[in-house]
């Protein structure tokens, strides 16, 4: 078996989710190569080469890889796929965008968002917003897989010295181009990597009230998340949404404030180790999965919580 993992990075730094995708690759067994495609991404290539579990870094540092456009990156991966039995990436929005395009080029059915490796061709993956877990067997020669990062413990980021092979030829397909981006800037930890997440829902009633959560988050070193209702109401931006169609988190502690607990929200956080719910409605479904429930008005509970931390 021979596995190609596609690194996610911002040209400067590897995304920790890649270390979890590598963990799934280690479970599969066999040689692991890591592809780093980007533009001005030497720092990410250097980081990649230090990962102990990989044999080789395959680097493509080229302007056509800037912004990770699927139209350009997918053929690059497919063209360099020969000899590999598995191609893996962490299930981030970047990989979700690219990997099915790779699978179609190879004429194979991709396997999305695996949460467990059963054997080299059999995997578990959540379906129906995580309400069910399917066991799926792939009969394709090459398995193109995205990995649910929260389901695998990251491999060591250092301790190795892999060789770096450089790909010179990268094509710009010329059918898509980057125009602009609005990236969230925050001094708080990244939502999917934080060990504590404090999330607010429609009950927060306004964007300004999220300050109550930010103050608690800053005392705990936590990231702040939100329900879809809070994002739709424009209290906070979309990158904070947790759930079936937002981010999947599994921190040590998840505090849900003014969130009712719809299955689509639970899909993104129910693997958290400890769940706290603060809600004024004692019948709210979130209490049925919370380890500690506090029936209270959040506008009195949050300032009190802040003062006691």
């Amino acid at each position: 078996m021979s596995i190609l993992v596609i690194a996610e990075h911002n040209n400067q730094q590897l995304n920790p989710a890649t270390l979890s995708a590598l963990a799934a690759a280690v479970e599969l067994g066999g040689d692991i190569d890591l592809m780093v495609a980007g533009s001005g991404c030497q720092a990410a290539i250097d980081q990649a080469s230090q990962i102990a579990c990989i044999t080789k870094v395959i680097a493509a540092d080229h302007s056509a890889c800037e912004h990770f456009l699927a139209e350009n990156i997918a053929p690059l991966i497919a063209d360099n796929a020969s000899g590999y039995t598995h191609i893996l990436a962490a299930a981030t929005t970047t990989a979700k965008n690219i990997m099915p395009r790779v699978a179609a080029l190879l004429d194979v059915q991709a396997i999305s968002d695996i949460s467990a490796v059963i054997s080299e061709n059999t995997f578990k993956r959540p379906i129906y917003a995580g309400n069910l877990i399917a066991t799926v067997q792939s009969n394709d020669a090459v398995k193109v897989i995205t990995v649910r990062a929260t389901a695998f413990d990251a491999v060591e980021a250092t301790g190795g010295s892999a060789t770096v092979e450089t790909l010179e030829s990268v094509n710009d397909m010329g059918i898509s181009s980057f125009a602009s981006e609005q990236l969230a800037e925050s001094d708080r930890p990244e939502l999917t990597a934080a060990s504590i997440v404090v999330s607010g829902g429609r009950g927060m009633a306004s964007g300004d009230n999220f300050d109550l959560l930010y103050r608690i988050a800053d005392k705990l070193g936590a990231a702040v998340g939100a329900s879809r209702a809070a994002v739709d109401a424009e209290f906070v931006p979309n990158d904070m949404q947790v759930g079936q169609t937002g981010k999947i988190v599994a921190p040590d502690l998840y505090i849900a404030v003014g969130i009712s607990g719809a299955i689509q929200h639970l899909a993104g956080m129910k693997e958290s180790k400890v769940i706290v719910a603060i809600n004024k409605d004692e019948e709210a479904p979130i209490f049925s999965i919370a380890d500690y429930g506090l029936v209270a008005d959040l506008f009195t509970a949050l300032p009190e919580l802040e003062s006691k931390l």
Partner: protein
Amino acid sequence: MKILVAVKRVVDYNVKVRPNSDSSDVELANVKMSVNPFCEIAVEEAVRLKEKGIATEIIAVTIGTVQSQEQLRTCLALGADRAILVETDIPVEPLAVAKCLKAVYEEEQPDIVLMGKQAIDGDNNQTGQMLASMLGCAQGTFASEVSVEEGSIAVTREIDGGLQTLSLKLPAVITTDLRLNEPRYASLPNIMKAKQKPLATRSAEELGVDVSPRTQLLGVELPAQRQAGIKVNDVAQLVDKLKNEAKVIS
């Protein structure tokens, strides 16, 4: 400008799904089926483009069993002009769906294909990307805003870090995220009118597409269930529990 909208018949998002009696598949007997919510958003976007005078014709297409006609009628009531059912009896995977859509695309030659970013049953989030790949065209996935320009389309995408805007050459495949629009409800007169709109039935064989599955579902199970914990009396007790029992804060 012609728009093809791919829609999927799925278990309604309010239904709590269970494994069937031998845990070989999901229990689908007597459950309410609907248009996948993301596909509804795709239909709505197409209708808005027509209302703005940008689109001239909207064709809704689904790959599925004869029962999927029900969801196509919904799309016709929402504003699609005609519909195509590619009938199959076996559950089709994204790769096969994309191949069927490619065949329909080649016959219809639309300028834009609009579809959902994911179906809420399989949660695969693959089909649009696969179709774009097979067509060799650009893709605008997870769209929260689209604006059609001369020969191109600007698509704002919801990505992990925030929002990204791309400019894509047409033809292009666009997959919808939740905040692209809020779909309307079909009015009664439109539901009546939809019954008269054309709905063609094709088969995968006729389109020359091999839909045989590449994966096998070995079983479905319920995830480990979380037990409800305790209710604490006040904030002080909560902090105490988190510090001394759960030991997740210091």
